[in-house]
């Protein structure tokens, strides 16, 4: 018994000792070779298929964009640049819309087979196959035919599709790999080929995914690195700590206060830029919303009584100082040539709110704005201005935003009642039910999302959950989806946005910033606000 106890104790000590002393603890990313960098990310792709219904994640795109490589890719100014294509695809004629493209002679798959138009055609067939659960068929289902001649292809559309360039330029599957396969079950765990700068090597689920240089990639600069390893660390704090502790080289963090710790740290480089996602408050104009919201002057009071500038500065003062207020529901401030500040006229003025409401015969509210006010206005025929405000629970920034808006509006006699729900309930049940008054959330998107603004703001639009309907706005947004001339299309979109700024079906707040933090000893990463993600220029990345 005694001997056994001693032996047990020795074993226990040996285990503990080996844990501490055994594996050497190197300074620098975890025992990696010189040409390996570690990309820390907060989500793991469910599969490597691409934009599938379970898989419409940035995390998947970060990995697959450089495998299913694009004919063109978005650079860091959100401009499409030829990659596998010889040149930009051409709009041959507008009726019927016909587009031509040609892959470079040097564009080959990692198994040596050439990338051809047949790959594009096979990809198109995947996207229009109703059995396959792709996240979106937009554009693909408008195609009448694809005619191939080796590397060259001609696409004829059935109906005009404005976002044709990004559609044609997208990454394609290898026809010889997917032929006859059930795509719903393909690429769950690996990808056998690549047309991009890196190719798949291994995936330890729940831990990391490793990509290695594709030696057959000749259409652009080859990767200087040997490997890129994506490490999946789901906990926010652990992610930042791991980067600080040298367990990784680069990450794209969500808006988190921990970013501030890196701003003045010489061991790291922080890049910031607004992205295409924007925060806004939708106003319910349907029968299940508060009747007062159907009155334009009440909506004007809401936007005038909301200090939008204070919201963006209060939320992002430390990590994104100077974040501008968003004054358009269609264009973003960084789209300088297109962005028109139609909502600018709705500046913050509490006294103006009171005069608007009193001018329309509303009673019971305060005479002057006051933070201690508890009097709420009632307006003729619609009752008290007390609204149910829905947003997601567990999001610190949204909670703070709500508190600012609630305080601002209470000061002028408008009451907001918080209704915070989980994202599943909010977007799954509440939003489509239209049984809400005000709802704050983010619309994510990309450079082409504006083209389909009709789904949000046209009468009967697929995602027009606020039930806004103005024939003038609908006409402009619907026409924009069919307009192939970018200048005319942008003018139509701005015409629609002008009408939105008059009708106020939604209050734009701010464009969400995006960050990239990289170790100082890694050169090359350039923030890309499109879905290409930071690795869009991975070929230039280099460890110093």
């Amino acid at each position, binding site marked *: 018994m*005694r001997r056994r106890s001693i032996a*047990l*104790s020795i074993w226990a000590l040996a*285990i*503990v000792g*080996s*844990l*501490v002393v*055994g*594996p050497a*603890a*190197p300074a620098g990313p*975890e*025992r*990696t*070779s010189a040409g*390996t960098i*570690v990309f820390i990310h907060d989500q793991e792709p*469910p*599969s490597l298929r691409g934009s*599938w*219904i*379970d898989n*419409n994640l940035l995390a998947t795109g970060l990995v697959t964009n450089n495998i299913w490589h694009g004919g063109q890719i978005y650079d860091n100014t959100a401009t499409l640049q030829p990659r596998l294509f010889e040149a930009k695809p051409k709009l041959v004629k507008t009726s019927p819309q016909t587009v031509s493209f040609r892959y470079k002679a040097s564009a080959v798959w990692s198994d040596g087979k050439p990338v051809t138009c047949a790959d594009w055609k096979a990809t198109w067939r995947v996207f229009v196959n*109703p*059995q*396959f*659960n*792709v*996240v979106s068929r*937009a554009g693909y289902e408008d195609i009448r035919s694809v005619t191939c001649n080796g590397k060259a292809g001609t696409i004829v559309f059935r109906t005009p599709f404005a976002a044709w360039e990004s559609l044609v330029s997208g990454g394609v599957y290898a026809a010889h790999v997917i032929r006859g396969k059930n795509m719903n079950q393909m690429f769950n765990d690996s990808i056998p080929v690549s047309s991009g700068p890196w190719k798949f090597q291994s995936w330890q*689920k*729940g*831990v*990391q995914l490793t990509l290695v240089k594709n030696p057959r990639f000749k259409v652009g600069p080859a990767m200087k690195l040997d490997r890129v390893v994506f490490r*999946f*660390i*789901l*906990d926010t*704090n*652990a*992610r930042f*700590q791991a980067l*600080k*502790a*040298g*367990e990784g080289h680069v990450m794209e963090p969500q808006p988190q206060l921990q970013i501030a710790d890196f701003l003045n740290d010489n061991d790291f480089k922080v890049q910031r830029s607004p992205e295409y996602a924007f925060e806004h408050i939708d106003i319910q104009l349907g029968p299940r919303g508060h009747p007062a919201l159907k009155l334009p002057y009440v909506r004007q009071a809401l936007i005038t009584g909301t200090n939008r500038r204070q919201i963006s500065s209060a939320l992002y003062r430390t990590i994104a100082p100077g974040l501008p207020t968003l004054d358009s529901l269609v264009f973003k401030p960084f789209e300088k040539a297109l962005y028109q500040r139609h909502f600018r006229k709705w500046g913050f003025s509490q006294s103006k709110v009171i005069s608007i409401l009193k001018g329309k015969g509303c009673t019971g509210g305060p005479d002057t704005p006051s933070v201690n006010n508890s009097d709420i206005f009632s307006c003729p025929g619609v009752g008290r201005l007390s609204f149910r405000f829905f947003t997601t629970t567990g999001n610190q920034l949204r909670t703070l935003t709500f508190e600012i808006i609630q305080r601002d509006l209470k000061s002028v006699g408008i009451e907001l009642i918080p209704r915070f729900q*989980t*994202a*599943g309930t*909010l*977007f*799954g*049940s509440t939003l*489509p039910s239209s049984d809400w008054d005000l709802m704050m*959330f983010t619309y994510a*998107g990309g450079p082409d*999302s504006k083209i*389909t603004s009709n789904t949000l703001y046209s009468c009967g639009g697929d*995602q027009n959950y606020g039930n806004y309907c103005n024939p003038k706005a609908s006409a402009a947004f619907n026409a924009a989806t069919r307009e192939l001339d970018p200048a005319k299309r942008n003018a139509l979109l701005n015409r629609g946005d002008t009408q939105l700024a008059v009708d106020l079906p939604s209050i734009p707040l701010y464009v969400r910033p995006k960050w990239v933090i990289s170790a100082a000893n890694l050169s090359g990463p350039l923030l890309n606000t499109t879905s290409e993600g930071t690795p869009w220029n991975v070929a230039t990345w280099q460890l110093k």
Partner: protein
Amino acid sequence: MLSYVVRRLLYSVVVLVAASFLVFTFVSVSGDPLAQLRITPNVSEQSKQNVIDRKHLDEPIPVRYWYWVKDAVMNQFGTTLLGDRPILPDLWRVMKNTLQLVLVAELLAVLIAVGIGVYSALRQYSVFDYAATTVSFLGLATPLFWLALMLQVLVVQIYEQTGHRIFPIASLNSVDAGSGIHFVLDRAHHLVLPVVVLMVASVASYSRYMRASMLEVINSDYVRTARAKGLPERRVTMKHAFRNALLPLVTLVALNFGTLLGGVIVTETVFSLDGMGLYFYNALLANDPYPVMAWLMVTATMIIVFNLIADIAYGYLDPRVRYD
């Protein structure tokens, strides 16, 4: 004994069925798994409909539950809701990871706690006893997530001051973990912080039980008799008192172990360990009832089995306990 075991297992089946139905219902009504797709522009209605048809989402919950039962029995828990991904391989993977973590943490916790508990009891009201009591209460009162975060911050501070990363912050292994003994050592190195966090609460709790149990035994008549017979103190302590004092702890550890195998959500989340707890948490966030159900069945089975083991072990260690 055999009839007792069979009877317990039969009761357990009823419990499992009832629990599975309740959990399926709660998860199904708690939110829409297609929610995110509703705010994604241009989502294919056909793709959404394919999911609805495949998983019978348009059927009432009892019907959907019946389809799940069939899938679970005939198709190894079936597939995930949106991705149609087989559930069982993922579940096996995370179970193995959790088992490694929990096994090491519990083993070390029991060894340390027994030592502390016995010594505290034998030296009641000594400085060591007071110190152990204070530290135990501190351990019981410390929130695990806070402790985990503090340990991470500490390791980062040491790294920033000295350039040495004494323990990894997160994940199960290094980028190049190697194989064989190198892999084992690397995995062990990564599990140090999570094990410490898990051990703190277990050591605190087990040592209190052990101390109380040991105190009770060493003051009992038969121990006094053994001493009166002139047996050496070490023999009285180790052979007569210690074995009996272990009884309550055996039960507690067995029950606790079964529960921990279901995953240690906080520890696994903070340290990003690909285990049962994190698997469950992610499935819940995705409103996907199918992995949640698979997790539930495995966890509930573990708890039932370890309850049974505790009962049987109790009977084995204490001949006075008999099962009819």
